[in-house]
Each structure stands twice: as structure tokens, then as C-alpha cells.
């Protein structure tokens, strides 16, 4: 217990680590707030600059950016009706009408406090649930890991894109990218085309920067004409009467957020939309109707999306399986820093777990501090024109890719995946499953081989044994259900159902 506490407090007592967490949170709020910049993009680029750092230092900066970024998206959603991040889409529904009535300050203040409450709920659930999930995960068979990874990729693919086929294509492409290089078990060449430089594979960071940095910035070039709208803001402290009044709703939607965040394939964006719907259904007589500036419509998604951060950490740290694109990038960062997220993390490196929990708590406190101060600076920075911002994203993407190995080859990969990602996005292919595939490729490959070897290279035995374990059966059924739900058979069954 004392050891856990001392690890929890590492970033609290070191001025350097505390400073980095504060810097990360501060930057994260702006990254989240500026439309065109995303947390995924920022963390992807940051990995390349921080991978030579000590792991604690790098984690402090990235955790801060993640926590701040999820909150930051709400700012522009309220002020400009432009959600800075997908998780803030629901916030704009009532936040912007509040700003139009001149209540922007109050909306920001309230959303800050509720985000922080949501963040704390997420962290508390993470610290309580993770050890149990981790213990349970020790009983997982290799095939369970394999199916869980497939399920995650399929869920992200089906929920984010416009067709499951495209989502699956992207996930498989990612898996294939992850296999390039020498096979880790037999050192056989895979997709190297005789090029020695490819023996080490394609650096996942270059893929991430290309897919999230370059492709996103290129897509932004389509919307250059959208000008920033100025808002007058002075006071942003919320009315404490409101905080007290809406605390029960905030706690309920935080719980919802943390559960949704912990599920594979669902992140803060879905948690926020579900929480908004929950608030709409459970609030009988709102002071202001929903969609016209209801405070309940602002509080629910904000508490939920920040609570989802803690939830998303549960499968990431205990199973080594990310729930969505942001956590996939984050997981990539943890691997690069030599950590091995999975069921053994809590047993072998409990200090890293408690350090992360402590650091998330600290970042959440900084969200409160930065969220309620510095509004003048905020309005100035957020008005940074896209004409300046986009070239800077390109520049950071190029420099970031170069910094991975001090090699131009990584720039080429980054650029190739950036252009591919750009076209994929425009044609309805989501880039999130690609990254998930790249990150999970090794886990999938190794567990598939372990599973099939233990089943004596027999597919019949593999499927037969699958039904001896309730967890394997459940995972297999979930994968099958997602696949069947996309076939014409499902449509026919659904049509028949009402008449039956």
C-alpha cells in the first residue's frame, strides 16, 4: 500500500515531472481546442521527439496532453460551435447556444469543473478495477488475446467508418504493415523485397504521423475559408450552486463514460453522445430545453468524455489492447519506451501503473487550474489562422519523422502513409483501424501461432477447443455477430422480426 502511494506521488514530488505534466496539460488544452489539431496527432508527433527521454518524463508530457486534449475540445465547441475533438461534438449541442446567449464564461466554467469530476471518477475506477481485470486477464488463452484484438479492430472499424468492409480492410492493412521486416520468431524476411533497410520493419511512429498528422492537415486544406469567430469572454468561474445542483448527473454520466471508455472500439466521443442522450432522457423538466442551451446537455458529455480516459486505460494497461485510435497511439508510445502493457504489467511493474494513476490525477488537477484561468491567452492562441497552423503541422510531421532514426527514409514512409491516409479518409476508409492493426499486429501474430501450435496445427481442434471456454465462446460469438450484422441475411431477419 505504502509502495503504491509512493509510486503514485512520484510526479507530485518531482518539480521536473510536475512541470512536464503541467506543460503537457496546458499544450493538450490548446491542441484539443484548435480545430485541425488532435490529441492523436500531437501524441504521434511527440513520440518521435521524446523517445530518447526517460520513460517517466515522456509519460508525464503525453498523459498531460491526453487529459488536457480531451477537455480542450469543449472550448471551441462552446465558443465557435466547432468541436476541437470528436469527443466534444455533443458539447457543442448545448454549449454553443449558451455562448450565443452571452453565457460562454459560465459554460466554460461549468464544463471545466464537470470534466475534472468526470476525470476523477475515471481514475478512481481505473485504480480499483485494473488489478481485478489484470488478474482475470492472466487466465486468458492465446486465442482469447487474438480474438480480443480482432474484436477491437472490428469495433473501431465498424463504429468509425461508413462500412464494415472498409473498416476490416484498414485493420488488415495495419496488421500487414506491422509484419514487415524479419519475423521475430524465425528471422525469416517478410515483405522486405530484398531491401536490408526493411529488415527492422516500417516504424509505427512514421505510419502514425503520416496517417494522423499529414493526412489530417491535407484534409484541413479543404476548409481554409472557415474563419475563426471572435467571442467576448471575461469571467469563467462557474456558479457553485450549479456545480452542487448538477453533481448527481455528473457522477451518473461519469460512470457511464468510464464503462463506455473501457469497452474496445468506443472512446470519449461515443461516451459523450451516449451521456448526452442519457441526460436528455432522464431530465424531466430542464430549465432551458435541450439544444437551446440546457446546462444538463453541457455537463453530461463533458463529465463522460473525461471519465472515459480512465476507462480507456483499463484495457490498455491490463490487456495491452487499445480501445480506439488515441489509446492505440498511446500504447505504441508505451511499447517504444520499453514498457510491456498487459496482464503482467501490474505484477512485474506495479510502480509504472501507480505512477500513471498518480500522473493522471495530477494532470486532472492541472485541467482545473488551466481550465479556469488564462482565458485571454486562450482566445488569442485559438484564433491562430489555419494558413499558419497547417504549414507548422507539416513541418512538425517531417521533423518528427526524421527524428525517429535521423533518417530520411522515415520521412518517405510518413509521407506515403500521409497521402494514402488522405485519400482513404476522403473515400470513407478510417485511419484509426490501420493504427490499431499496426500496434496489435505482433500480439495477433504471436498469439495465433501459440494457439495453433497448442492445438497441434489443426483448425478443427482450434475451433473445437474454442467452445470449451466461456470467454473464448463469448468473444467468438461477438466477432461472428458483428460480421453477420453486416450481411444481407441480418437485414432480412430484421425486416421479418416486426411481423413475427
Amino acid at each position: 500500500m505504502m509502495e503504491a502511494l509512493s509510486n503514485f506521488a512520484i510526479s507530485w514530488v518531482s518539480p521536473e515531472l510536475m512541470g512536464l505534466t503541467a506543460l503537457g496539460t496546458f499544450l493538450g488544452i490548446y491542441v484539443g481546442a484548435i480545430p485541425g489539431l488532435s490529441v492523436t496527432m500531437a501524441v504521434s508527433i511527440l513520440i518521435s521527439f521524446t523517445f530518447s527521454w526517460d520513460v517517466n518524463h515522456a509519460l508525464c508530457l503525453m498523459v498531460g496532453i491526453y487529459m488536457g486534449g480531451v477537455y480542450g475540445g469543449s472550448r471551441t465547441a462552446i465558443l465557435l460551435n466547432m468541436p476541437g475533438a470528436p469527443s466534444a461534438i455533443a458539447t457543442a449541442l448545448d454549449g454553443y447556444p449558451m455562448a450565443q446567449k452571452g453565457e460562454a464564461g459560465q459554460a466554460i466554467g461549468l464544463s471545466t469543473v464537470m470534466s475534472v469530476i468526470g476525470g476523477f471518477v475515471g481514475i478512481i475506477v481505473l485504480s480499483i478495477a485494473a488489478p481485478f481485470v489484470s488478474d482475470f486477464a492472466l487466465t486468458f488463452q492465446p486465442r482469447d488475446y487474438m480474438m480480443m484484438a480482432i474484436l477491437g479492430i472490428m469495433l473501431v472499424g465498424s463504429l468509425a467508418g461508413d462500412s464494415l468492409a472498409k473498416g476490416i480492410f484498414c485493420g488488415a492493412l495495419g496488421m500487414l504493415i506491422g509484419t514487415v521486416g524479419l519475423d521475430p520468431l524465425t528471422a525469416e524476411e517478410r515483405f522486405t523485397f530484398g531491401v536490408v533497410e526493411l529488415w527492422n520493419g516500417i516504424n509505427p511512429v512514421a505510419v502514425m504521423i503520416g496517417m494522423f498528422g499529414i493526412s489530417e492537415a491535407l484534409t484541413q486544406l479543404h476548409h481554409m475559408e472557415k474563419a475563426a469567430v471572435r467571442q467576448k469572454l471575461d469571467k469563467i468561474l462557474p456558479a457553485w450552486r450549479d456545480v452542487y445542483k448538477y453533481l448527481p448527473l455528473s457522477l451518473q454520466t461519469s460512470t457511464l463514460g468510464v464503462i463506455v471508455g473501457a469497452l474496445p472500439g468506443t472512446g470519449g466521443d461515443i461516451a459523450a453522445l451516449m451521456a448526452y442522450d442519457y441526460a436528455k432522457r432522464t431530465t424531466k423538466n430542464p430549465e432551458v430545453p435541450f439544444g437551446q442551451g440546457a446546462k444538463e446537455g453541457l455537463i453530461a458529455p463533458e463529465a463522460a468524455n473525461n471519465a472515459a480516459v480512465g476507462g480507456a486505460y483499463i484495457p490498455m494497461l491490463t490487456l495491452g489492447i487499445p480501445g480506439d485510435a488515441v489509446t492505440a497511439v498511446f500504447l505504441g508510445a508505451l511499447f517504444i519506451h520499453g514498457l510491456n502493457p498487459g496482464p503482467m504489467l501490474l505484477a512485474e511493474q506495479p510502480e509504472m501503473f501507480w505512477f500513471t494513476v498518480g500522473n493522471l490525477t495530477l494532470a486532472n488537477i492541472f485541467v482545473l487550474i488551466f481550465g479556469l484561468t488564462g482565458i485571454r491567452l486562450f482566445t488569442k492562441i485559438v484564433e491562430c489562422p489555419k494558413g499558419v497552423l497547417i504549414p507548422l503541422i507539416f513541418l512538425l510531421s517531417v521533423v518528427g519523422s526524421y527524428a525517429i532514426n535521423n533518417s530520411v527514409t522515415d520521412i518517405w514512409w510518413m509521407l506515403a502513409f500521409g497521402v494514402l491516409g488522405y485519400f482513404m479518409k476522403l473515400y470513407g476508409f478510417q485511419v484509426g483501424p490501420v493504427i490499431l492493426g499496426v500496434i496489435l499486429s505482433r500480439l495477433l501474430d504471436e498469439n495465433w501461432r501459440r494457439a495453433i501450435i497448442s492445438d497441434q496445427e489443426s483448425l478443427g481442434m482450434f475451433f473445437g477447443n474454442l467452445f470449451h471456454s466461456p470467454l473464448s465462446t463469448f468473444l467468438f460469438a461477438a466477432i461472428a455477430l458483428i460480421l453477420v450484422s453486416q450481411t444481407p441475411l441480418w437485414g432480412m431477419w430484421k425486416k421479418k422480426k416486426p411481423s413475427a
Partner: protein
Amino acid sequence: MVESTQKQPGETVFGYLMLLLSTFLFWQAYQISGFEALSSPGAFPLAAAGIMVISSCIVVVKNARRESPAHLVQGFFTRILPPLVAIMIALILVYAVVLDSLGFIPSTFVFLLLAIHLLHHRSIISSLVITTGSLILIYVIFRLVFQIILPEGIVPEREILAWLGNLFGSKGN
């Protein structure tokens, strides 16, 4: 998860290109160890490439059922690859080519100046000021604070930094 009934310009070609890529990768995956064993190094890539082939076939078939947009070529160059995007891709490409040989400072300066001038639509003086300020900021943060090694190229950066260090060092003595 609803696909629009009308295709984007170039979507059919992109679908076929993805199918072509998948087939090529499937062939390459087969080359690793054929159908030797289910636990062979090639089995997993073969399965992944197979999934790509099947899913890209579905995408191609679905695309064929959707309406084609009017003014295909014109639509492609306005909605998918407008001149601005093509120019920016070309600019990044050139930047990446010259970064190593010319060095970070001159190549980044030219890249930023051109990109900001092209996208920000302000006077050249304003673009110059923003470019210089951004370059200094990025250089200080990444090169001096983060200690990231950036290509020196034609600028003898280390000598300049050493000279500056000596200058301030000797003044301090």
C-alpha cells in the same frame, strides 16, 4: 454507418487500386512460406492479405452499385485533389528531398515561407516575419531544448553554436 448513395469522384479507381494492392500483397505473403503450416511465418500475413482481398472485393462490388458522380475528372480535381492539396504534397516532397542535403534551417525557411505565403494570403513581409519567428521558435524548442539532431547541410550549425557559446562564455569571464 451509412454509405452515401453517390460515389466520390475517383472512388471506383481507388477501390480497384486497393484490390490490386491487396492481391499483390497476398501474392507476396504467399511467397514467404506458401501454405506450409498454420504456424509458419507467412500464415498470419497471408490471412491478413486474404482479408484485405475479400474486403476490397466487397468495397468494389458496393461501389459498382452506387451512382457515379457527374463531371468525374473535374469533380476529382475540385473535391478530392484540389490544386492546393497537390501543391502542398509536392512542396512537402521537395522539402523532404532537400532537407538532408541543404540542411534544416535553409530548407525549412523556404518551405515555411512558401507554404505560409500560399495558405495565409498576406503580404510577403508578413509571411517573412511569421516564417522567421516560427523557425526560431521551432529551432530553439527542438534543437536546443529537446536536443533533437537535425540535418545541418550547408549551414555550419555546430561551429556557429560553438562560436556563440565561446562568445558568451568569454564575455562572462
